[in-house]
């Protein structure tokens, strides 16, 4: 087999081993073995590969060529310092003893030492220059070249007395060994990087300062290397030629015609030719040195004419240039080594002086960027870094000032916003707390200063109680602003007493207009008829409320929600209804309750909500809300509140207690009793004296009408009922009789401008009542005349 192919195969063994170990580390549990064990295994295997190289040297140009050094280099550079040293020592020591079983002794020292050094070199490089990471393919390749150059230099150094033989060996090995080891390490490096998915193509912004300087240094070093080598070659060639000139001249001068054949140096000689039988000398001058081939050997030649022949002095170029070649090799090798050392030194210096300080500055900057403005950067090792540190510290100081200023301003504005939002929520005034029909409590805890949740409750114009809980998408100021819009629109419509689902439909239309921010609202609204307990509700994508009836446990009101508000124009909302029985409690809330999460990102959830409600011992609405809130807080623990938490609890207590007085057979004398009763009740309600008087007059007028006209000639039942109303504060007086249908509001109004003689007293009573009351409504229903009088306090 061609020896070049053999060498190629030998060079490929470390590559295969490297890829194998890399896959082992990436894909198997090999990585779980302790580091020393892994390093030992890798070191031993690569040591064995080095031994293989020694034992199967490939004969080439009369020398044994191998790429033993590639194994410790691969182990050290690609897998770790200890592995490199182990492989190097194994390979080197084996080479030392290999002479006993037939491996050449000439390069014994050089080969042994070079292999050990290769391992140590790779280990040091990886440990101290690359922070125990794999170097790039360029460095790997250069390392292979440098180590082999060192190896060849050692061949000279250890055979200083046999320089010519050393030169022959070196000459035979240099190119194959450099190519083999260099490419072995290079491909191992590239393939391993590919397997381990290291970044191969380095982005320009990722190229470090040291790498840039390395590149330019490499260019300079290569140019300097070639220039000095060419110059030295020229000079040494000149010297070799002039020495050959001297040797040949002397030989020709000394040769005697009788002894035409002598030797010159080791391989030179003189000879005699006739008629240019060996070489044609006609082109050359006598006694002048020239270069040509004789017997196929390139040589320096000089001739001298004598009689009919010529004496030729021949000095083969190989011998003449031997010294030049040795000095060229040694010089070249030394340059490579010196440049390599220089290269590493500069790399190390830059790393120490610039890169490490830069990292220190960057570490500080990272802390600052992450919000730790108290971090100071103190890199004062030289002028440039001192200036940089001071500059950064001053910038951070200035920044701190601005931030503090901005924070103060924002804090103040947020406080205003918070106050405004709090003011927009309804307060539990006496109009709500003093109503016997229900108990209500609501709370809103924003996650930030202001929130997107809100609740609302108010009386409709028909006297129903509306209550609402809603959640605007998002948090903070934008949500708070949209919340104000939503609250106003819904209330404006629902307050008129229109069905709650129609109020939602209308509010949705309004909220869709100009909703460029694509915010939306989920809401649940209920409207209770406090007389009967009938509740009508509508749900716009909101959490389903929970209800408690009598001693039963809490349960969700199962009713499918409609679409969210402000999501799409033209959506129609449905209406649900339910009959609240006295004592029923309704709990309405936002998803801030059920979606509160704890430190392990678990949600509070529906079941915990039911548990919290069922475990509540408080009988008040405030107690229920606070109990649920404390359950949520306990559950969340240290986890920050993520969303606004809003709750509303309402209990229906049944219709308002009525205050009324009834008579089976209405007669005028009842008025005194009625008036006494009414005065007592009105006093309880805090009625002003004037209102009491006006009510008395009204009772006198209306009741006397009932007595006189309702039952024609007979008498019948009559009832006067009093109800204290809160919105607005006033008294509702209701007269009920079962007489003939009669609407007193239709009575002809008296002309109050007539003179005494013309005046008729008829109709004046009703007229007075109409004038003094704030509202009068008549209805005939279920064969009863019912007249409602309302008077504000």
């Amino acid at each position, binding site marked *: 087999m061609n020896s070049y192919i053999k060498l190629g195969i030998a060079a490929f063994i470390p590559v295969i081993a490297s890829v194998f170990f890399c896959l082992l580390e990436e894909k198997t549990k090999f990585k779980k073995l302790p580091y020393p064990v892994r390093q030992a295994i890798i070191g031993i295997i690569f040591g064995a590969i080095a031994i293989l190289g020694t034992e199967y040297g490939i004969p080439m140009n009369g020398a044994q060529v191998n790429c033993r050094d590639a194994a410790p280099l691969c182990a050290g550079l690609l897998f770790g310092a200890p592995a490199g040293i182990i492989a190097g020592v194994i390979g080197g020591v084996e080479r030392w003893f290999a002479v006993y079983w037939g491996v050449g002794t000439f390069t014994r020292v050089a080969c042994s030492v070079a292999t050990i050094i290769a391992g140590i070199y790779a280990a040091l490089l990886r440990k101290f220059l690359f922070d125990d990471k794999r170097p790039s393919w360029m460095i790997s390749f250069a390392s292979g070249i440098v180590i082999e150059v060192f190896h060849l230099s050692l061949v000279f150094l250890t055979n200083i007395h046999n320089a010519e033989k050393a030169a022959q060996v070196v000459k035979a090995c240099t190119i194959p060994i450099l190519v083999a080891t260099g490419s072995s390490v290079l491909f191992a490096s590239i393939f391993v990087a590919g397997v381990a998915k290291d970044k191969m193509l380095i982005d320009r912004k990722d190229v470090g300062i040291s790498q840039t300087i390395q590149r330019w240094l490499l260019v300079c070093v290569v140019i300097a290397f070639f220039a000095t080598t060419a110059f030295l070659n020229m000079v040494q060639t000149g010297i070799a030629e002039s020495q050959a000139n001297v040797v040949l001249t002397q030989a020709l001068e000394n040769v005697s015609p009788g002894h035409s054949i002598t030797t010159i140096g080791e391989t030179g000689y003189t000879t005699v030719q006739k008629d240019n039988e060996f070489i044609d000398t006609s082109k050359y001058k006598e006694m002048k040195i020239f270069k040509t081939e004789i017997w196929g050997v390139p040589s320096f030649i000089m001739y001298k004419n004598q009689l009919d022949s010529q004496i030729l002095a021949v000095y083969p170029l190989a011998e003449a240039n031997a010294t030049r070649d040795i000095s060229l090799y040694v010089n070249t090798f030394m340059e490579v080594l010196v440049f390599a050392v220089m290269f590493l030194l500069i790399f190390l210096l830059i790393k120490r002086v610039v890169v490490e300080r830069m990292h220190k500055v960057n570490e500080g900057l990272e802390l600052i960027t992450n919000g730790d403005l108290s971090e100071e950067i103190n890199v004062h090792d030289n002028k440039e870094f001192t200036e940089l540190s001071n500059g950064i510290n001053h910038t951070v100081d200035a920044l701190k000032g601005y931030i503090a200023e901005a924070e103060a301003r924002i804090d103040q504005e947020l406080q205003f916003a918070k106050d405004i939002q709090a003011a927009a929520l309804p307060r539990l005034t006496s109009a709500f707390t003093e109503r016997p029909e229900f108990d209500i409590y609501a709370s809103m805890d924003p996650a930030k200063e202001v929130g997107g949740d809100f609740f609302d409750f108010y009386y409709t114009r028909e006297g129903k109680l509306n209550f609402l809980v809603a959640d605007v998408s998002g948090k903070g100021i934008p949500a708070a602003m949209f919340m104000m819009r939503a609250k106003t629109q819904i209330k404006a419509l629902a307050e008129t007493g229109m069905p709650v689902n129609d109020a939602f439909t209308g509010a949705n239309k309004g909220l869709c207009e100009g909703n460029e921010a694509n915010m939306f609202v989920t809401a649940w609204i209920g409207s209770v008829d406090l007389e009967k307990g009938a509740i009508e509700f509508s749900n716009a994508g909101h959490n389903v409320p929970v209800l408690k009836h009598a001693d039963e446990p809490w349960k969700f009101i199962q009713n499918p929600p409609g679409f969210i508000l402000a999501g799409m124009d033209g959506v129609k909302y449905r209406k649900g209804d339910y009959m609240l029985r006295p004592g029923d409690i309704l709990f309405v809330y936002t998803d801030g309750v059920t979606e509160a999460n704890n430190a392990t990102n678990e949600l509070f959830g529906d079941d915990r909500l039911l548990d919290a409600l069922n475990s509540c011992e408080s009988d008040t609405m405030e107690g229920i809300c606070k109990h649920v809130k404390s359950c949520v807080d306990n559950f969340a623990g240290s986890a920050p509140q993520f969303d606004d938490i809003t709750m509303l609890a309402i209990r229906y207590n049944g219709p308002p207690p009525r205050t009324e007085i009834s008579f089976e057979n209405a007669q*005028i*004398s009842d008025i005194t009793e009625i008036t006494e009763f009414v005065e007592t009740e009105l006093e309880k309600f805090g009625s002003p004296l004037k209102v009491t*008087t006006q009510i008395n*007059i009204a009772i*006198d007028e209306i009741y006397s009408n009932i007595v006189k006209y309702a039952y024609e000639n007979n008498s019948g039942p009559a009832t006067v009922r009093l109800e204290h109303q809160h919105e607005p504060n006033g008294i509702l007086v209701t007269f009920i009789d079962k007489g003939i249908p009669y609407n007193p509001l239709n009575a002809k109004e*008296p*002309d*109050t401008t007539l003179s005494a*003689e013309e005046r008729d007293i008829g109709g004046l*009573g009703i007229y007075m009542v109409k004038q003094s009351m704030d509202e009068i409504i008549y209805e005939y229903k279920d064969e009863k005349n019912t007249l409602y009088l309302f008077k504000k306090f």
Partner: protein
Amino acid sequence: MDINKTLNGESLEVALAGRLDTTTAPELEAALELDGIKDLALDFSNLEYISSAGLRVILAAQKKMSSQGNMVVRNVNDTIREVFEITGFIDILTIE
């Protein structure tokens, strides 16, 4: 209701106390004997209020007195004055 009458020749002064309503108006109507009276004075100092039944009695008295003499109403409180205003009685009666 208390009705306190003071007759002085042809002038009669009636002081009312309490409420002049459907129940009490007939009492006043019966108490007002106006035949031969030239000057009638109604003192409302202690009257709380008047309903339309009371107004009817007062209107009747005013009509009668217009033909035979003079009638004044005295010491009208705000509530009663308001009733007079609403009903237009303020233009008919002479209120002192």
